[in-house]
C-alpha cells in the first residue's frame, strides 16, 4: 500500500472504531491497537503510540458535552487522577522495557476481560449507603440530576478504588488505551459510584491519564506522524458523531457485536503473543 491508500484505509477503520466505541461506551482505542497490528502489520509500539493520542482526542472532545449534563464529579476525578497518572508513568516506563510479545499477551488478556465486563449485567448501586468517613473527609460524595430532582450518593471503599485506579493507569500507559473496563470495576463495583457519574467522570479522567504517558511515548519515538494522523482524526470524527446520534434501540445489539469483536481480537492477540508473531 502507498501512503495515500494506507492513510485512507486507516482513517476509515479508525472512524468506525471511534463511532462504535462511543455508541457502545466501550471506547475505540481498545480495538485499534489489535486491528493495526493484526491487519495492517503495524509494529505494536507504533500502534500504541497512535492509539494513545486518539484516546486524548476522544476524551477531551467529548468532555464539554458530558459536563453540561451535570453528572461528572470533578473531585472524584481529580483525586483518582493522582492514582491513574502515577500508574500511567509506571506503565509507560515498563512499556519501553518489556518484549512486544508480552505486550500482546497482556493486551489480549485485557481485551478478553473487557468483553466479559461488557456482557455482565450491571449491579444496581444501592440507593442510600451510609457515608464513608474517608470519602467524607475527601469530599467525594456528591449529587446528580435524577427524575426526582437531585440524587445524592456516598462514595464507598476509597482505598480499594484508588488502588484499582493505579492499575487502570498502568494499563493505560502500558497499552495506550483508556482502560475503561478497569475504571468501571474501580468506580462502579468498589466505590459504588452511580453509573452515569462514573462513566462521565471516567471519560474526563482518561485524557489526563493518557497525557501522563503520551510525553514518554513521544520522546521515545513511538508516535509516528504519518500513522497517528489518520488514527487521531478518524477516531475523533467517529466518536464526535457517535455522541450526537442516539440510537438507543440499537445499542444493545451493537454492544453484543462490538464485544464479540473485542473477544475475537483478544484471542488473536493472545495467539500472536504466544507464538511470537508480534
Amino acid at each position, binding site marked *: 500500500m502507498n501512503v495515500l491508500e494506507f492513510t485512507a484505509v486507516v482513517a476509515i477503520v479508525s472512524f468506525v472504531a471511534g463511532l462504535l466505541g462511543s455508541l457502545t461506551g466501550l471506547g475505540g482505542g481498545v480495538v485499534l491497537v489489535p486491528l493495526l497490528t493484526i491487519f495492517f502489520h503495524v509494529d505494536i509500539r507504533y500502534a500504541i503510540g497512535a492509539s494513545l493520542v486518539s484516546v486524548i482526542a476522544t476524551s477531551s472532545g467529548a468532555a464539554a458535552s458530558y459536563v453540561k449534563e451535570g453528572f461528572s464529579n470533578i473531585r472524584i476525578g481529580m483525586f483518582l487522577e493522582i492514582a491513574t497518572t502515577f500508574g500511567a508513568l509506571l506503565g509507560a516506563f515498563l512499556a519501553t522495557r518489556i518484549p512486544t510479545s508480552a505486550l500482546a499477551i497482556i493486551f489480549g488478556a485485557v481485551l478478553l476481560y473487557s468483553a466479559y465486563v461488557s456482557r455482565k449485567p450491571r449491579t444496581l448501586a444501592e440507593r*442510600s449507603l451510609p457515608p464513608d468517613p474517608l470519602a467524607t473527609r475527601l469530599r467525594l460524595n456528591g449529587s446528580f440530576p435524577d427524575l426526582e430532582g437531585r440524587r445524592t450518593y456516598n462514595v464507598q471503599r476509597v482505598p480499594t478504588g484508588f488502588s484499582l485506579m493505579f492499575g487502570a493507569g498502568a494499563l493505560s500507559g502500558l497499552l495506550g488505551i483508556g482502560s475503561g473496563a478497569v475504571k468501571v470495576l474501580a468506580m462502579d463495583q468498589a466505590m459504588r459510584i452511580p453509573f452515569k457519574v462514573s462513566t462521565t467522570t471516567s471519560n474526563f479522567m482518561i485524557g489526563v491519564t493518557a497525557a501522563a504517558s503520551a510525553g514518554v511515548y513521544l520522546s521515545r519515538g513511538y508516535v509516528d506522524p504519518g500513522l497517528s494522523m489518520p488514527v487521531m482524526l478518524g477516531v475523533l470524527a467517529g466518536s464526535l458523531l457517535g455522541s450526537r446520534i442516539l440510537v438507543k434501540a440499537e445499542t444493545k445489539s451493537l454492544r453484543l457485536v462490538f464485544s464479540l469483536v473485542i473477544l475475537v481480537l483478544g484471542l488473536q492477540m493472545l495467539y500472536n503473543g504466544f507464538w511470537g508473531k508480534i
Partner: protein
Amino acid sequence: MPAAQAPARQPHPFTPQPWRDRRIEIILGNLLRIGVLVSAAVVLLGASIYLSRHAHERADYHIFRGEPSEYRTIRGVIQSVVSGRGQGIIQLGLLLLIATPIARVAFSVAGFAIERDRLYVAFTLLVLAILLYSFLGSGIGL
C-alpha cells in the same frame, strides 16, 4: 434503621457550591473542546502537506525504527515546522493535543483556589506535577 435514612436527608459536612462547580466545569469543558479542535486543525493542515508530497511512497510500519529526533522533541518539531514539513506540523498538532488536558489540570488549580478548597488545590498540583514531569522530564523538552 435510622442510619440507612440519614445520608439522603443530612446535608453533607462539606457542600460544594454546585453552581460554581458547574460553571468552572463548563469553562474547562469548552477549553478542552477548543484545544482538541485547534490541534485537529493543525494535524489536518500538516496532513495535506504530508500527503501532497509523500502520497505515492510505500507505507511501512512493520519494523519499528523509532522516530528521528526532529519528531521526538519540542525543539525538533518546531524546527521541522519552520522548514515547512508536513510531518512536523502533524507532530505539532499532536503536541498541542497532549498539552490540552495538562492545561485543563492547570486551570483546575485556579478553580479550586477560587473555592478556597486547599485540599484539592494540593491534589491538583500533585497531578499537574506528575504530568509536567512526564511531559518535560521524558526528554521531550530537549
